[in-house]
């Protein structure tokens, strides 16, 4: 599967990554290479092999239903370009 310039443009937009128009063909090529490698992996017959999710036999770590975090409004907002009255302030988004 190869990625054309149009697809590269769309994927960049979806990911909110600004890519200059003249960089798109190269980006499309790189993405195509990655997918090409994946396709190569696809040639391996993995019938009956369970997908591996971890290299060690680990159980998903769980937490108890206890409030142990939060109340750090100041720290949460510290890096925000704009914050007012405890809110993050962002350019207007209205549906």
């Amino acid at each position: 599967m190869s990625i054309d310039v149009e697809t590269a443009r769309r994927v960049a937009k979806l990911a909110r990554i600004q890519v200059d128009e003249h960089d798109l063909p190269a980006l499309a090529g790189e993405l195509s290479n990655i997918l090409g490698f994946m396709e190569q992996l696809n040639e391996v017959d993995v019938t009956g092999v369970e997908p591996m999710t971890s290299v060690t036999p680990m159980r998903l770590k769980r937490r108890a239903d206890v409030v142990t975090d939060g109340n750090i409004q100041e720290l949460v907002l510290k890096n925000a370009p704009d914050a007012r009255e405890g809110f993050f302030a962002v350019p207007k988004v209205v549906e």
Partner: protein
Amino acid sequence: MLDLTYETPKPKVIAGAKHDWELVIGMEIHAQVSSNAKLFSGASTAVGAEPNSNVSFVDCAMPGMLPVINEYCVEQAVRTGLGLKAQIHLRSAFDRKNYFYPDLPQGYQISQLYHPIVGEGEVLVEMAPGVARLVRIERIHLEQDAGKSIHDMDPAMSFVDFNRTGVALMEIVSRPDIRGPEEAAAYVVKLRQILRYLGTCDGDMQHGNLRADVNVSVCRVGQYEKYQETQDFSHLGTRCEIKNMNSMRFIQAAIDYEARRQIAIVEDGGQVVQETRLYDPDKGETRSMRSKEEAHDYRYFPCPDLLPLEIEQAWVDDIAARMPELPDAKKARFMGDFGLTDYDANVLTADLESAAFFEAVAQGRDGKTAANWVINELFGRLNKEGHGIGDSPVSAAQLGGMLDLLSKGEITGKMAKELFEILWTEGGDPAEVAAARGMKAVTDTGAIEAALDALIAGNPAQVEKAKVNAKLAGWFTGQVLKATGGKADPAVVNAMVAAKLGL
């Protein structure tokens, strides 16, 4: 348990300009899991806090933070699945649903697309006594809620609060088995009732803790049966999804509007475009959310931060062993044990508090009388004064005590209503209040008889009239009640009048 065999309700048919059309509806209900902490962080789920105070670094997606799942949220999802008679998947997994929006700091929602924790189940939705739709549940998955944007605090800016970000949601997905606006609302009511019984979601629609996305399509009469036979969607029309509704009334209005819109398009020779729409309650119409279209490419992939969620059958069995009695079972029991009508049983099992109140009143007493008093007098009064059952001024013990006085004939029905009024406004022990206020039915039949004999002896003309026209015997009853100061039981007096006059 009663034998519950139901008839299937007729689908709603809408007459178009050219044909009759049927509706096909599937729903996705987002139910906020009742828990103390969020799905993947230790921040609180409490509402009404300062903005961005119930937020951890995980919730606001600071670099390097990792999600750790809240086991209780998993338990709640399992409990919900069991409550909907659904398959529980001992192995499920989390995926990332990618989209950009200011209220989603991660840039993706952690959800379960490929391997949901709960599989197929069902909900029985009663439309009338003996008539019910069995709605199939396709799946339930766990996912994170997004934050909240406020648009009206500044003309140029939106304000974002992440307090809700990362709170656990259950998305409950139905099959397209719902066949009309009323059924859709009834489905939400029933699902909400079950969730509240289970204690897995508080069902507070006003605060968005339960909200519905509704998929609506229309088809010609007969097409739906073909779909049901084959499970092939090509027999059905193209669907539109109406997003994010949190009122039963809006759900019905939106479905009705959307169905008529689609019918008009198709009858006009056009084609319905599959899209996401929003219901505008002010205008009473749905409109396209065009901005959602491109964002719909969610590029799901397995979440690399989370291992698959593996749970043990023994744990599921333990949750199953601790399941509460659910609405259908409770209703059947109320009808069986207390002799309630279908209607009364529905009203009294609508929520757990009402059911518990009724049961406390009815225990060891006549069920039907208890139901009448709880529904007509108590609920009527509570509604009128805007109270919930939880803050009823009259307790179950008080109402029960009053019913005991009534059933023993110590007070008349009329006195019971007066006593109820006093218990409501002033409180107190029913027997003591009745005694203190001189509320005592004349149970001494001798006194009633004496009064009646005197009346008969003194009014021979009335006796003759009553013998000709039995309705006029009521005059004697009225006079006796008057003579005893309204403290005699009208039923007792009536019987005695009839006997004495030989009616």
